[in-house]
């Protein structure tokens, strides 16, 4: 049995609770994801404290820069991916318990 489309399903009378619960569930997890992003970012960005660029002879500064910016781009991309869903959540007022 497949779920009917949001607006058209004739059997929608029965199914919507499941559908809505699922959508709202997704949104709640997106909110969680958004809250976790800073933690992820902080963890990745704190890794350099294990480096010792001044004490090693290896060429490690240029890769270090690349690493920093790569983390940065990942964070931006993830935030951008979440932003649309969270905007809808804001519009629907599903923001209880912030």
């Amino acid at each position, binding site marked *: 049995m497949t779920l009917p489309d949001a607006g058209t399903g004739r059997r929608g009378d029965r199914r919507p609770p499941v559908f809505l619960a699922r959508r709202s569930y997704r949104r709640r997890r997106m909110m969680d994801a958004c809250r976790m992003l800073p933690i992820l970012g902080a963890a990745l960005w704190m890794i350099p*404290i294990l480096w010792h660029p*001044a004490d090693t002879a290896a060429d490690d500064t240029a890769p270090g820069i690349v690493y920093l910016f790569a983390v*940065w781009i990942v*964070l931006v991309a*993830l935030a951008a991916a979440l*932003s649309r869903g*969270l905007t809808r959540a804001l519009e629907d007022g599903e923001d209880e318990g912030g």
Partner: protein
Amino acid sequence: MVPFDLLVAGCIAYVILLFAVAFVAERRARSGRGGWLRSPWVYTLSLSVYCTAWTFYGAVGFAARSGLEFATIYMGPTLIMVGWWWILRKLVRIGRTQRVTSIADLISSRYGKSNLLGVIVTLLAVVGTAPYIALQLQSVTLSFGVFAAASPQGWALPDQGVTAIWVAAGLALFTILFGTRNLDANERHHGVVIAIALEAVVKLVALFGVGAFVVWGVAGGVGDVLAKIEASPIADWPLQPGRWIGLTFLSAAALLTLPRMFQVLVVENADERHLATAGWAFPLYLLAMSLFVVPIAVVGLERMPAGSNPDLFVLTLPLSEGNGGLAILAFLGGFSSATSMVIVAAIALATMVSNHIVTPLWLSLRAGGARAAGDVRGLVLTARRLSIGVVLALGYGYYSLSGGSEALAAIGLIAFVGLAQILPAMLGGIFWRGATRVGAGAGLVTGFALWLYTLFLPSFGSSGLISAEVLVEGPFGWGWLRPQALFGIEGIDPLMHAMIWSLALNTAAFLIGSLLSFPEPLERMQGAAFVHVFDQSRGTRGWSRGGAEPEGLLVMAQGILGGEEAQRFFQAAAVEQGKAGFLPDTTPDFIDRLERRLAGAVGSATAHAMIAQFAEGAAVSVQDLMAVASEAQQIKEYSAQLEAKSEELARTARQLREVNDKLTDLSVQKDAFLSQISHELRTPMTSIRAFSEILMEPDLPEPMRAKYAEIIHEEAIRLTRLLDDLLDLSVLENRKAQLTVQVANLHDLIERAITSASSTRPDRDFTFHRDLPTEHMAVYTDTDRLVQVFINLVSNARKYCDADHPELTIRVRRAGARVEVDFVDNGSGIPKKSQSIIFEKFSRLTDTSRAGGAGLGLAICREIMANLGGTIEYLPGQGGAAFRVSLPVRRGLTRAA
């Protein structure tokens, strides 16, 4: 080489552009065509005030000295922004529901609207920001200096101090012009925001331009740059884990607590949804701003002569490579960074100073307090303008005192640490209901004091406010109190030392103070309102009982919001309650809303104190709090629904009652009307009949005959006029009046009315106050009818104004597609109980003056205005009898059919 005068010309042209852009944006926003001004992109770009000249120029220097450490300054804000759902969304929501005007207001409002906390935060902000403004002035003068020195014509810069003065004065002018247009902090400063967004673009383009030039123009592409990095001294940068973590944390805190960031993030936020965009777009902006920092530093170190200042590589590198145009662009980028920071910081600080220091001081010094406050609006605006001047003067003073020393360059991070002291009180306030005012105060004072002692004062060097002796041996020789090695713990980086001690003890004082103290009811309520900002279906109230006198509140609100705005607010509230006119019932709900409205203008503490003067004894008590304090969510929601329902029922009941009253009144009125008509007709008839019988007698002397004939004639005319009025009224009431719509100048109509009305009590010497320029306005309506209304109002004033020196003020205002004409005299006005009946037929309030016909004048006026598609209303709280005539500028022709 760039001729120096070309640079100055470019700079001036750029400034003119900024003024023009701000001006146009204000104009468009005012005329309601500024939808794009509220786009999330403008919001995102406005956040770029985070990137000041210190980051624009200084990041390269930072990188040249400490390698990748510069990136921490951008990493902290990035982490806060991508997690916007957590803190920022809550701050923005609180800012909107509580109408927060500044970060000082946020703290003050959260902790029971305590103005003392507002003052502490304001002082902290001023002390922390003034040097920061000095740093911006320094960067502009330094960059000017670079061009002057490189100029072949030997353009000697007259004096760096003079440049700084010009820059400071120009910024003050811009800020005053566009930053104090409206009093309400929740109305956006569109002009400022759009100018800053433009500057944000210029900054980015400039840095990108220089970066691209360096990577592909000077060096040989990306690979070459990476190789150069490994070969440069930067490759061996010392990574200090403590500073790495500490600076990231510090910059994250700064995004939340810097007054200018709070201003753009929270106060200027037009829509919560913008955060969703800014949450990724602003980190992207920061990424872009830092992308070319290391390449520029590396290439600069390689190409520039040894000993040249790496802080200015962004400028000197293109200049020495002969690319003058790019150098000018870089200069404008730096100029943009400096000016946008100063403008927003000045607005934020001026709001704090005027709302938390000047206005409360002024109100407490005045006899009568808020009740006799008068024109608070003018006061606050003036205070704000002066504060902007003072803030910039402080910045300039600091600049000239420090003489462009190195101490200034370090001030950026020092200011971050200072303002981060607000963080515990702020985060504690929005996430922990147990945070109290005592705790917040203790934390702030502890943090502030430690910051001053361990970081700010030592930053002036050993010749400054703290002597070398104290630095080395501690005060009074107590080694454990050495400013940079508290409790004998040595060897930490001074910045980290100060940050850890001040924030740790700040937080400890905050927690202990909160745990040990007991909050007042208002504090607990505000705490609940802040922490549970997202589940307030019913909202919390600061006022448990109503009953304040509405007219007094209106007078006070007019003093703060301005007459028009306050009247609109009161009228809307009255309509919502199902009442007509300008005076709603002062329910707790209404008082609460009014307080928030005022808080948007003068801050929560002042607004609360002013309202308290009127609603004495109505402030929330412990018992009232019980309902709020109940944490059982379900009960809360259920009772919220019930309350909403019962409120709706009460409103319906009130409306029904009013309709019923009206119907009863109508029937009584009908009887009274007939009886009145009978009276008004019979009275002249009596004289006519009596004298005509007398005239019928044969032996009457001739002079008497003539006199009595004259009386009969007069009374017949009176009768005719009454009948005319009655017929007129009946036609108007049935909306069947023939209107002759034509165009006319409102000024001429008022002039005509005043001339015609001068025959009423011509013995009275009447003074008119008018603002002639505003009166010149074309109206398209039945001019004769409108003049009839004006004549009525003016002659009523002539008749009934009981002042010794009667005066009548006529004000004309355009409100959208309508025009409002106010007639205000200086008499004792109309008592409140009579205000609702003056427009009824035969409602003469006094019987003393018989000159005025039968008391149909205002009733006819009301009907005329209804026919013209307008209204006439009594305007309470104006210090005399006041009427507002409101009509469409263009009367539609529909009624003619």
